[in-house]
C-alpha cells in the first residue's frame, strides 16, 4: 500500500493508504483528526473546510495521492498555531458573538472565514457584504447572522 506523506498542522505525517481515498477520510478515519466534519461528501456543504498552503479547500474532494509531501494542511485543530496563540482571532470572535449552536458546521465556517479574509486582503481590500453572501457553508441551525457579525470582528483583529 502506498505511503502518503504531507504536513498536517505543522508536523509531517505518513499514512499507508491507497491514492484515491479522499483526504477527509484520511484525516478523520485514519489519523483521528475529527475537526473537519462530513456533511455531504461532494464539496457542497463545506463542513470539512480546512486549509492547504494557507488557502481554503475541501478535503472531501481531494485524493490523498494528489497531495505532495511539502503540502501544508491546517485543520481547525491547528488554526491557533498559525498565529502562535491559544485562539486565532476568528475563533475568539466566534466566542465573543456566541455563534455556535449545535457546533457541527463551525470548524468549517471558521476555516472558510479565515481564508476569505486572507483572500480579500490579497486583493487589497476589506470584506464586503457581497463576500459574506457568497460563503457557501451550511449552518442548519441557522446561526448565519451571528456568523456574519463574527467574521467582521475577526477580520478587524486579523492584522
Amino acid at each position: 500500500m502506498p505511503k502518503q506523506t504531507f504536513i498536517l498542522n505543522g508536523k509531517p505525517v505518513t499514512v499507508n493508504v491507497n491514492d484515491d481515498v479522499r483526504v477527509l477520510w484520511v484525516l478523520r478515519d485514519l489519523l483521528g483528526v475529527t475537526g473537519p466534519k462530513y456533511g455531504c461528501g461532494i464539496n457542497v456543504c463545506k463542513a470539512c473546510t480546512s486549509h492547504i498552503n494557507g488557502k481554503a479547500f475541501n478535503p472531501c474532494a481531494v485524493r490523498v495521492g494528489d497531495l505532495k509531501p511539502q503540502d501544508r494542511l491546517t485543520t481547525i485543530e491547528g488554526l491557533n498555531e498559525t498565529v502562535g496563540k491559544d485562539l486565532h482571532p476568528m475563533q475568539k470572535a466566534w466566542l465573543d458573538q456566541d455563534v455556535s449552536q449545535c457546533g457541527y458546521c463551525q470548524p468549517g465556517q471558521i476555516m472558510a472565514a479565515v481564508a476569505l479574509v486572507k483572500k480579500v486582503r490579497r486583493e487589497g481590500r476589506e470584506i464586503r457584504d457581497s463576500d459574506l453572501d457568497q460563503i457557501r457553508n451550511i449552518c442548519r441551525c441557522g446561526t448565519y447572522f451571528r456568523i456574519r457579525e463574527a467574521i467582521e470582528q475577526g477580520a478587524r483583529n486579523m492584522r
Partner: protein
Amino acid sequence: MSLSSSDHAHSTPDTAATPAGLGRRSFLGYVMAGSTLVVAADLNLARPARAAIPSGVQIPELYDLEDLQTDSALPTSQLITVTINRDGTASFALPRAEVGQGILTSTTMILAEELDLPMSKVKVTLAKARPELLLNQLTGGSNSTFSTYTPIRVAGALARQRLLEAAAILFGTTADRLTTTGGVISDGLGNNATYGDLASDAASQVVEAVEVLLRPPSDFKVIGKPKDRLDARDAVTGKKKFTTDLDVPGALPTMVCRAPEHQGTPKRLKNRARILKMDGVTHVAIVPTGVAVRARTFGQCIDAIRAMDVEWNPGTASGESDSTILAKLRGQEIPLVVPNVPILAETVETNVAFAFRSSAALEPYAAIADVRDDKATIWAGLKVPILAQQRVAEAVGLRQDQVEVNVITSGGSFGHKLFGDHAIEAATISKAMGKPVKLMWHRADEPRQGRLHPMATTRVRATVLNGQVLSFEQRHTSVTTDFSHGLGEMITSQADELDPLGLGGLGFAESIFTLTQELPYNFGVLTQLLNEPLEFEDQFSTGSMRNIYSPDVCTSAELTIDQIAKKVGKDPLEFRLEFLKNERVKTALRKVAKEGNWGRKMPKGTAQGIAIHKEYKGCTAVLVEIDCRPQTVNRDLGKETVTGPRVTKVVIAVDAGLVINPRGLEAQMQGGAMDGIAMTLTSSCHLRDGKFLEASWDNYFYTRQWNVPKDMEIHIIKSDSDTPGGAGEAAVGSTAAAVACAYVRATGEIPKYFPINHGQISFKPKSFIPPVPPSPTNGLKLTR
C-alpha cells in the same frame, strides 16, 4: 442587534396553595443515602398532579405493565439526582438531549443559581437511557426547560440547605447565620468551609424526604442574565465530539446502499464477492433497510456502495408523485361548513399546499453499535433514548436491560432525532456482521430515505360582515405524521386542564393538533380541524420538523387574516390589534411594529409583512421586509444556487415566559427565523414516481448566506409569566407566516404552494442507482 428588556424577575407569593399543600416556592426533595451528598427531586414536580402514566395507546410499547409494577415499588424511580463531589463541584446527568438548543448551558445556570455555585463548578452531562423515567426522558415540543426547571431547582436548593446545616454543626451555629458565596460557606466570624469540605458531612445514610424553599425570583443572580454556551470553546477548536468523532474500539466506518424508491428494500446483492474484495472493505450484510458495508474508511464504504449490483423491491410510494399525493389529500379534506351567517356576509378563502420537507440536520444520522450475544451498547444522538433502547432490544433479540444507550450531543435535530432509526439500523448491522460498527448515513440518504415533514393542505374560509369576522374555519389535511416516538403522548399528557375524555372521538394526531393549535383572535365561530387520512399510514417516513403542524397552519391562517383585513379596508397591524384577544400577543405585536417601523414607505416590489404565533406558553410576533424585485430574485451566484426573493429584515418580539438565558433565546429566535424563511421560500422535497429527487444541499435549499437578512433584531419581552416557555420552535411559524404575508403584499400573488419555488426543479437530480454520488477529485483546483 438589539436585546431589549430581559428582566424577568417576578416574585410569587409563597402562600399560594398547591395540590401538595406546600407553598408555591416550597417543595419536597430527597436526600439520598451515600458517602457524599446526593440530593434528588421528583421529575414529575413540573407536571400536573395526576398519574405519571399519561393516557395513550402506545405506552405499553415503551414500558409494559410488568416494568411498571417493578419500578413503581421503588420510591426513587422518578428522581433526578445532584451529587456534591468532594472537590467542591456538583454533578448532574440531565435526562434530555442536547442538540444545539443550549439546554446544557441553561441547566447549568439553573443549578448554579440554586446552589450558589459558580457555573464552572457545575458539571451537567446527558443521562443514558433510563427506562423508569417513561416519557420524562423525551426532548421535544420545546418542553425541556419547562419540564425540568422546578425539579432541578429543588435538587439544587436542597443541596445548599444540607450543606448549610452541615456547616452550622461544624461551626457551632445555626444555618440562618451562614452565607454562601461561590461554593464557600462562611459565618462572618472567620469560619469558612467549601462545599467539597462539607460534602461527606452533609451526606445521609438513609433516604430522607425534606421540605425545601426555593430562591425567590427577585434574588436571581444567574437566571435571566445572558450567558455564552458552555461548549462554545470546544466547538470552535474542533474538540467537541459528535457520534462519528468517537473512537470506539473496532467500530469501523459503515454505510448502507439504499433503494432508489422511498422505503424500498433489498432483494439480493449480486456481486457480493467482488465487493468483499474491494480495498478496505471488511464486511457486507443485507439488512431490512439496504445492503450494509463496513470498511476502513467511510470513503471506501462510498466506493463499495457505488460498485454494488443490487436487486431491489419497490418502495412504499411506488408510482406516486407530488401531484398524485396532493390529489388524494384534496379528496380527503374535511368540508368547510359555513355556519349560519347572515346572507349579506362576504367570504374570504385561502387554499394552499405545503410540500414534503426534509428535517435532516447537518450531522447525518449516525450511531455506533456494539452488539454481543448478551449485551448491546449504543452511542447516538437520541431525543427519546428509552424508545431507541426498546426498539434496539427488539431488533437484536435482547432484553431491554441488556441494551445500554449512551446519549451523545447531536449536530442538530429539528425533529429528526426523535426517532431511533439510526440506532436501530446500526444495532441490526452490528449483529449481522458480528462486529462493532460506526454507522453514518450518506447525505443523499437523508432526503430520500430519512424523515420528512409530511405534505399537507390547508383550507381556510372566513365570513365577514360590517367589519366583523363572523366565522373562521381552518381544515388541515396532512399525510400521516409519525408520532411513534412518544412526543404525542407527552403533549396529550400535559393537557392538564383538559379532561382526556373531552378529546373523545378524535384520533391521536387530531388530539395533538387540537392541543397545539391556538389562534388567539376573536373571530366568532372558530374551528381548526386536522385530518390525517389512514391511507397514508406507513407510506412515508415522516415526523415533526422544528414544530409539528404550526408553521403550515400559522402561515395559512395569517395569510387569510391579511386578506380579511384587506376586505374590510384595514391595515394588517391595526386589524390584528383589534381582533387579538391576548394581551401578551398584542404587546409583542406592538413591539415589532414600533421597532420595525411598520407602515414605512417601501419601493415597488418590496414590502413588509407581519404575523403572530402563540404556542408553548409563550408567543412571538414577527415583522419582515422582503425584496421581490427582479434584480434580487434573479441574482446569479453560480450553478445550483437558489436565490429568489430576499428577506432583508427580520424583527422578532418574543414572550417566552421566564427566560433562563436571554443570549440562548436570542440564538433560537435567529435560527428559527432562518427555518421560517426556508419553509416559505426555498426548501422542499419533490416526489416523482416513488422517489424523492433531492440528494444533497445543492438540491435541498435550506437557507444559505445569500438568503440571510442583513438586519435582524430580537426583542425579548418582559413577561408576566414566572415559568419558562418554549424557545426552539417559537419563531419558525410566525416567521414563515410573516414572510408569506410580505411576499403577497410585494407581488400581489397568493401562492398556491409552499415553498414558493416548489413548482420548478432547479437542479439535475443525482443518480438513484448507484444511490450515492461519486466523491469529487477536483478539490485542489477549487482552493480559495
